[in-house]
């Protein structure tokens, strides 16, 4: 279980609990601070507040270990090498997920430059899923995808959720929010979140 209490970053002030095998949709207008909130939970920006995973404070472990358990995925993932497969510790292990999301299995040796925005987004998701994190913080993970790919991503994440992973899924798509989220958090301009049960 992920416990967030009194998390403060700039104007944001948020508390909530996230159970195992639970997916929460995060909504709110652009620029309201959804990304800031997700980054803060992953401890990627300086912030205040208590964040625990199964009762263990994040400060009790090194930040890299925390982020391997509570993993943030940016809407436009970054690439530190020119070649796709350099970003995976085991490209062969990633292949089932790569093909499942409709990407060509031969794309391992491709230059990242050659990928479309949507392909990058899906590969970024595969890269993050390889960590088998306890909590996934997905920042608009399907914003650049066609409807077939969106369905593939949603079913893949749903599978992870049923196996115990907790997910916070930020989206601008109301239909998607009610499809994927067992609860919906709506963020408002004052930096607080309110819960809407669908």
């Amino acid at each position, binding site marked *: 279980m992920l416990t967030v209490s009194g998390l403060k970053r700039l104007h944001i002030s948020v508390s909530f609990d996230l159970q195992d095998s639970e997916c929460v949709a995060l909504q709110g207008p652009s620029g309201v601070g959804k990304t800031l909130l997700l980054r803060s939970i992953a401890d990627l920006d300086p912030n205040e507040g208590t964040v625990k995973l199964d009762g263990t404070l994040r400060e009790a472990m090194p930040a890299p270990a925390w*982020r391997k358990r509570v993993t943030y995925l940016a809407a436009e*993932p970054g690439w530190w090498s020119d070649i796709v497969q350099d970003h995976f510790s085991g490209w062969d292990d990633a292949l089932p997920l790569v093909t499942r999301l409709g990407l060509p299995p031969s794309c391992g040796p491709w230059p990242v430059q050659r990928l479309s925005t949507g392909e990058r987004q899906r590969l970024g998701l595969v890269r993050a899923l390889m960590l088998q994190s306890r909590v996934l913080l997905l920042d608009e993970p399907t914003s650049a995808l066609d409807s077939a790919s969106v369905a593939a991503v949603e079913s893949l994440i749903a599978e992870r959720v049923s196996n115990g992973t907790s997910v916070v899924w930020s989206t601008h798509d109301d239909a998607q929010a009610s499809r994927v989220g067992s609860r919906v958090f709506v963020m408002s301009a004052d930096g607080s979140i309110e819960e809407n049960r669908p």
Partner: protein
Amino acid sequence: MTYIQLAYGDLVLPALLVVMDGALSLALRLKLEKQLAIATVRMVLQLVLVGYVLTFLFAAVSLLWTALAAFIMVLFASREIVARQKRRLPGIWSYGLGAGCTLLAACTVTIFSLLTELRPDPWYHPRYSLPLLGMILGNTMTGISLGLDVLTNGLVRERAAVEACLALGGTRYQALLPVLRDAMRSGLMPTINAMAAIGLVSLPGMMTGQILAGVEPIDAVKYQLLIMFLIAGGTGLGTLAAVMGGARLLTDHRHRLRLDRINTETST
């Protein structure tokens, strides 16, 4: 050793060449005459002043005065490093890091050469220590300022890549490694290029100076080789220290990238 001494009067004719540049600037409306005049006056004043200061220092042979002169040289070098940065490190670190790394690298290498190879008596004799330090400082400074510039610009440009690695549980050193490598390479490149081209494209100033002063060319070459080895060592050491220090300043103990700590210089 014999060499042809110059009187101040011997410089009047060559100085007319600068006047010729000024006339060119006026005739072609290059608008350089003011800058040219200021630069010329500065050069004359600074060099004559340095000449007298060195004369005093060589007569005094005092550890205190020599150290003070070295310290002032390092201060000017670190000011130059800061002036060359487009994005600056926060507060005192903008000067501190450059000064600390130049001091560390240039002084270590200079003292190393004085104690092991040249062995003047006393070891800090300003006739040897200050020219050595000056040459090493100039090159170390270039390496450090290039390295820091590539580091800060690279981190801003590669922010998404660095943060992707951090978000996936990479440590700050893993995440910064590609940018750190670029920064180190840029810092060392001018020295490597200089070593490759030396003697073919350019005759180094110090060697030329010794030859003009009557030293046998092959002896001047040995001195120049010594200096180049020292420069290579000083630049490597200084650039490594500055780039690693910069990387540490721009991340924090929770392995976050802290680009908010960079001040962007917009006015200049």
